[in-house]
């Protein structure tokens, strides 16, 4: 099992340019093919984004409309709950003061309150970043210990940690449900954080061990000679060196915990429910409110795209290690 990681080591210098440079023509063809794929694959995403700015009737028009008059109705619907009123009631109302009031009233409806979306989004932030932080923090400690010290049964422990990743979460979902019910962890953010941390930690340990293995031991030894304790050396020398690895690991942990759905629907119902368990079920009048679903999807994608771009340099440099997600 341990040998899985072998090809992944020793590739830190990934950005060395190929000496056997492909010809100009072949590079252009390659670029064209890649761009075609990227464009085709992005159509659905583009369509999602676009749908967020359509009216509900444009969103289900036949044939589909590409250029619709832009509307913020999807976003307004995402953040509010509304109720339909009789024309008499509508005329009796004082004039609308805000643009979103006006928009809703033009549909013969009034805003009856905020929706649950902001709460669910906040839960996603807490659970997603909380568990990512914990997984990386615990992972970096364990990875350091496995990398530097002669831990007894090291290979067995590492194998044990990796094997937990192979376990289908469904195999443990039932007892976790029972356990959380007994401990009162159902529908709490803490419950989800612990669970996602446990799912991510094997990945974090393995990824980070690869990175820490790459950091020359001489650095720490020099620090130790200078009078640092082992902890100080870890803190002041190893951690800064492992920054790239930590960033790449964090992205992969975040992708999982940000998007997880199965456990979220089983273990949360309201207070701690995360956005992926909420977005698929945004109902308007009649069917799914597609513009609101699209708006929610677009907003939900933002943080992770932002985080990825922010750490992109690390991600692309750490691509070789990052590759072992899951």
């Amino acid at each position, binding site marked *: 099992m341990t040998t899985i990681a072998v090809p992944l080591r020793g590739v830190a210098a990934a950005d060395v340019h190929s*000496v056997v440079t492909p010809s100009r023509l072949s590079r252009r063809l390659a670029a064209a093919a890649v761009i075609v794929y990227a464009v085709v*694959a992005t159509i*659905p995403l583009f369509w999602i984004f676009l749908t967020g700015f359509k009216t509900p009737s444009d969103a289900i028009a036949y044939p589909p409309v590409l250029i619709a008059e832009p509307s913020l109705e999807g976003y307004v619907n995402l953040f509010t709950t509304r109720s339909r009123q009789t024309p008499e009631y509508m005329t009796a109302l004082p004039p609308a003061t805000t643009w979103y009031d006006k928009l809703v009233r033009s549909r013969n409806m009034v805003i009856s309150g905020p929706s649950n979306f902001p709460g669910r989004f906040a839960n996603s932030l807490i659970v997603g970043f909380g568990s990512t932080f914990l997984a990386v923090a615990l992972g970096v400690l364990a990875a350091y210990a496995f990398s530097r010290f002669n831990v007894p049964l090291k290979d067995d422990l590492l194998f044990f940690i990796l094997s937990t990743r192979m376990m289908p979460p469904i*195999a443990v*979902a039932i007892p976790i449900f029972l356990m959380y019910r007994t401990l009162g962890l159902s529908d709490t953010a803490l419950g989800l954080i612990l669970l996602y941390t446990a799912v991510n930690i094997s990945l974090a340990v393995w990824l980070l061990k690869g990175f820490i293995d790459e950091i020359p031991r001489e650095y720490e030894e020099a620090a130790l000679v200078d009078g640092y304790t082992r902890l100080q050396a870890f803190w002041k020398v190893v951690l800064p060196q492992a920054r790239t690895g930590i960033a790449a690991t964090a992205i992969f942990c975040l992708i999982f915990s940000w998007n997880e759905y199965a456990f979220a629907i089983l273990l949360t119902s309201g207070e701690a429910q995360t956005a992926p368990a909420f*977005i698929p079920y945004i109902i308007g009048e009649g069917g799914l409110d597609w513009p609101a679903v699209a708006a929610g999807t677009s907003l939900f994608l933002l943080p992770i795209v932002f985080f990825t771009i922010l750490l992109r340099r690390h991600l692309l440099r750490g691509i070789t290690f990052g590759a072992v997600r899951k």
Partner: protein
Amino acid sequence: MSRFPRSGAPIPVPITAAPAHRGLSDRAIAWLFITPTILLLLAINIFPLLWTIQLSFTNYRANRPNAPLRWVGLENYTYILEDFEVWERLQTTAHFVAWSIGLEVVLGFGLALLINRRFRGDSFWTTVILLPMMLSPAVVGVFWKYLFEPQSGVFNYLVNLVVPIGSFSMLGEVNLAPWAIVLVDTWMWTPYVMLICLAGLRSIPDSIYEAAEIDRAGPWRRFWSITVPMVMPFLLLAVLFRAIENFKMFDLVVNLTSGGPGSTTELASITLKREAFEKWKTGYSSAFAIILFVTVFGAATVYVKLLNRVKNR
């Protein structure tokens, strides 16, 4: 990010400027660093797994906590293994896993080869291509349902622009639905395979190609005798990870088809979820979960053995 966590990690020792031989011993630090991880995994993975095994020999139902608990021995297991419908679900799952991974490998490896030619803007396009895998599979499922709408869906519209075949329902027809889930999964996870392959390609030292150049090996030969063998361990690793993931696939497909039409896209995990959390047959579904786990674990172990053999060649 690299600031030390104050909560969650057991580091009670304040860091002071003590001489090297003071402070904690290396052994103590090692255990201090490893223990939290092990404890967490024991609590949230191993203990529940053992509990699942125990439950799988009972008739327990989580929605009837007061009903008498009975040990039923291997009854749950024999019932599952003798049920031809369970085998159908496994076939459906196998079809999904095999085709989605096949397509992802072909497309992902191809894209990685192209990107590795390093054209202007390649890292930008790489990032763009990565976008689908950052989405939540559940949300992807819901949204593709929208794209697949027979009347208003943009997928059917675009297909009709290319080949005018008229109205069809990707998710409603028995012959199309299994391919619809393959298509969506391929769309979502090809970038992942591409990423790993790219890692493999970039790990090949240039000196090998230079040597081949000197030997006057043609591009075809270089590809088969250097690129493919060097990337193979990475590709096989990607296949392993994707296969494990797709074997447990739930969120994407359940939101796309809910297993329909009929049961044509009901993957094993969807059945398991229904048995466990809709029918609440806890004992029965625990046995099912164990069977699935053993299948994945067994297949993965065999696969890893093969993988190591490939690598050591």
